[in-house]
């Protein structure tokens, strides 16, 4: 199959080319000393002027972390991480700007290079409004995180009018301490796992969203995370609370500049949905994956979990994972409320020497709870891609329903695709279904497309897009554009 080897070569040349967004911005940093101990935790807390209860909370997490072991069960391998050889606090040295105009111009230039939609009108200018309808384009509110501190929050007024709180979590600690205290750590407790404990001890910033009762958030909320300072682990903490009958769609995306050292990223995301509330959480993750030999790249060890606490509440996770050297991520739903719904849609791509071990957990507790899992894994180069998921049905979850579909696509003969689902059912009236397939792009599919005049690259793009379609259609339109771009960058001409 000469065409195959040719395309593999093309992929290699495409992916070995310089990382498109691999530039580096120099901004004066304010570092905490290297390493991790109780003093560093106190330093972070003091730096952020936190109340005593939060410092105590962090210290408790730190002490738990000391006794915990790094998980070894994921199907990923990497050299041991020296947690004492990293900085745990790095913030732009100037005071947080009040508006976009105050933002360090260098930072704005960085965003411009990234095409981040701070000016998303321009970004979307090419999109035609629907026929016969002059619809007002809803803007996206951006809480941009540059390294560890939130530096720009837009559209605040508009959101405030609705009673919505959208700010950095450090701001929330000062302005809405009762809410933060009530919910922080209730979904992902400090001692949940090794990385969550680490995050709880040293988290520097992240987003806080509160949607009051009955409010439908008028715009997509968006955060762009970036990792910028050399040797700075990033530990975001995001907390989203949707009160009864409210709705919110939250977008999270990230790109990172090229660098040589592995960087640790251990975020925690907590979602709480009350009666009839809906949270849609979408992620496009495109951190630096390392070079073709697997040097550098981000270690992405993330804990994301949602509590569907209310009846008829709904949480939908959608993720497109194209970046990072190692991804360890299981966005989960605990379906507590009767008739609550959990969804997980995922596309994960591993190329070169990337490794991904990702999936979800759906824990059915309430009656007639429903969950859907659709996972698409694409492995190319020497990538290793694992779906790992758990569907657990408690005895009380009468009439619960789960449908799981995991498909893997292999590109080239040096990669691996793995599926590890766990199904634990203790309820007679519950119904669970799981199916998984593994295949490659068939020669006849390629032949069919090429015969009709498509170039090999377009044909592959078409087929891969079709393979991921069920997931991509779940993304908000603004994100779908970027996601498709990323798929192309990750796999350009890559298939045989």
């Amino acid at each position: 199959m000469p065409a195959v080897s040719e395309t593999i070569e093309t992929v290699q040349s495409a992916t070995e080319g310089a990382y498109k967004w691999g530039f580096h911005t120099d901004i004066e940093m304010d570092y905490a000393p290297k390493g991790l101990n109780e003093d560093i935790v106190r330093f972070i807390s003091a730096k952020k002027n936190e109340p005593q209860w939060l410092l105590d909370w962090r210290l408790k997490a730190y002490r738990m972390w000391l006794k915990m072991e790094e998980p070894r069960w994921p199907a990923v391998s990497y050299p041991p991480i020296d947690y004492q050889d990293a900085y745990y606090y790095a913030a732009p040295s100037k005071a947080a700007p009040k508006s976009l105009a105050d933002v360090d111009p260098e930072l704005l230039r960085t965003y411009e290079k990234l095409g981040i939609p701070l000016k998303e009108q321009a970004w979307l200018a090419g999109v035609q409004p629907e026929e016969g309808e002059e619809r007002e384009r809803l803007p996206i509110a951006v809480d941009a995180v540059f390294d560890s501190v939130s530096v720009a929050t837009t559209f605040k007024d508009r959101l405030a009018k609705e009673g919505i709180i959208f700010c950095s979590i450090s701001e929330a600690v000062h302005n809405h301490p009762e809410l933060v205290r009530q919910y922080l750590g209730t979904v992902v407790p400090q001692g949940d796992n090794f990385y969550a404990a680490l995050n709880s001890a040293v988290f520097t910033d992240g987003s806080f969203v509160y949607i009051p009762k009955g409010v439908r958030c008028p715009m997509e909320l968006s955060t762009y995370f970036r990792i910028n300072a050399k040797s700075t682990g990033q530990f975001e903490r995001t907390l989203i609370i949707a009160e009864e009958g409210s709705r919110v769609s939250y977008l999270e995306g990230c790109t990172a500049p090229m660098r040589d050292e592995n960087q640790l990223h251990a975020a925690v995301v907590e979602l709480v949905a009350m009666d009839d509330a809906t949270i849609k959480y979408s992620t496009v993750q495109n951190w630096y994956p390392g070079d073709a030999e697997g040097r550098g790249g981000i270690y992405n060890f993330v804990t994301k979990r949602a509590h569907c606490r209310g009846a008829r509440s709904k949480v939908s996770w959608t993720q497109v994972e194209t970046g990072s050297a190692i991804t360890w991520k299981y966005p989960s739903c605990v379906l507590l409320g009767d008739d609550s719904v959990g969804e997980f849609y995922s596309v994960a791509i591993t190329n070169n020497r990337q490794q991904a071990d990702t999936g979800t957990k759906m824990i059915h507790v309430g009656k007639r709870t429903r969950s859907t899992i659709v996972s698409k894994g694409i492995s190319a180069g020497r990538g290793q891609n694992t779906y790992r998921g758990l569907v657990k049905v408690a005895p009380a979850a009468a009439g619960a329903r789960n449908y799981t579909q995991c498909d893997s696509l292999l590109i080239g003969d040096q990669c691996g695709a793995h599926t590890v689902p766990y199904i634990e059912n203790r309820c007679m009236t519950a119904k669970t279904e799981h199916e998984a397939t593994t295949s490659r792009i068939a020669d006849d599919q390629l032949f069919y497309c090429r015969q009709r005049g498509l170039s090999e690259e377009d044909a592959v793009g078409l087929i891969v897009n079709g393979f991921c379609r069920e997931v991509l259609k779940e993304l908000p339109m603004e994100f779908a554009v970027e996601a498709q771009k990323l798929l192309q960058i990750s796999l350009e001409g890559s298939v045989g």
Partner: protein
Amino acid sequence: MTAMQQKGAEGFLHRYEGLRERLPGVRLPWVAALRDVAAVAFRASGLPTRRIEAWRYTDLRAVGEAGFDEALTSLEDGQDLPAMRGSARAVFLDGRFRADLSDLDGVGYAVGSLATELRKLEGRVGALARPEEQPLAALNTMLFEDGLVVTVPAGVEGGVLDLLSVASPTERPSAFHPRHLVRLEPGSSLTLIETATGPEDGRYLHNPVFEIEVGEGATLNHARLQQEGPRAFQLSTVYARVAAGGTYDNFTLNAGGQLVRNEIHTALVGPGGACHMNGAQLLGPGQHADTTTFLDHAAPDCASRQTYKTVLSSKSRGVFQGKILVRRPAQRTDGYQMNQTLFLSPDAEIDSKPQLEIYADDVKCSHGATVGELDAEQLFYLRARGIPGERARAMLVEAFLTEAVEGVSDPVARGALEAAVTGWWSRQMKDAA
């Protein structure tokens, strides 16, 4: 390791120390070496605990607590042996071969007892078993006394061989660890129907290990009817290696026992090999049965099919773990695995973990898993046509199991399985009434 597992492991090690000079093959250096290496492995691992991923859903604490003695072999009056199905039969009582109860005359292949033939079996015992990886295989290697040895010469059609394993009634818990060796030379065939039974009230551990070699173009049908006594532990491990163009069919029925583990490791090592692994777990009150399969596609152009069905009635727990590994050279692999569970009672539990690990790109691999109860609409449909409720339920359960039983190609083996399934169902109905 929990205290109980520790204690249980020490009991077995202690037994090994005591029996070492009396076990078969003690004067054969290679046997002594195998046993000693296994003892070192078992001392390090102990009885597996739930902290080990492969044992996540099956707890061996009860085995650790039991404190087993040597089996005092005897057959009580009135303890009938099941009827013969094939042209030949080998009977093992408490893991020891009984020539007086067996009927092996006139078979066209070599068959005998491991204890008797051990000195001729260097290189065959331990060829496939992995005591360093599976603690129960280590336990077996340490303590095996006997087993079945079958060698079917090239081109010979071996017909049907019955392997009967019977546990005798004992006051104190007993344990036996038979090692069975089956070799099919190129182009030969055999149907091996294995039945394991034991007394109604006896507590015993049956820990067999099979080492099965299927030669080029050979076919082995291996039907296993596990109908141990209701207080028994059966922890069995099957290792099979299939050469080019060979076929290994395994069907395992788990109907008896209190705590059962059926672990199968099959490797397809030659091009064009095939493997069918099917099974049914029919579980009643308090039973725990675990089927764990590992299918290793190591050569190109092989096909594998697995269908496992579990029916759960009250307070029972079923476990299925099935892993398919496709190695890099195993291009054009066609792998399929289905695992389905039917709940008949609200207080049962199923844990299912199908798993794919794939390193070759030109493959077709899929697995599926479903869990549910009897379909109310189907029941209604049957009852609307005048079929009584219990009969309708029986029909639907039977239909549910058909797909797995259908995969058994040998008619004798299939008949035996169907009879066992029917027997289980009528016992359930009797108990329910």
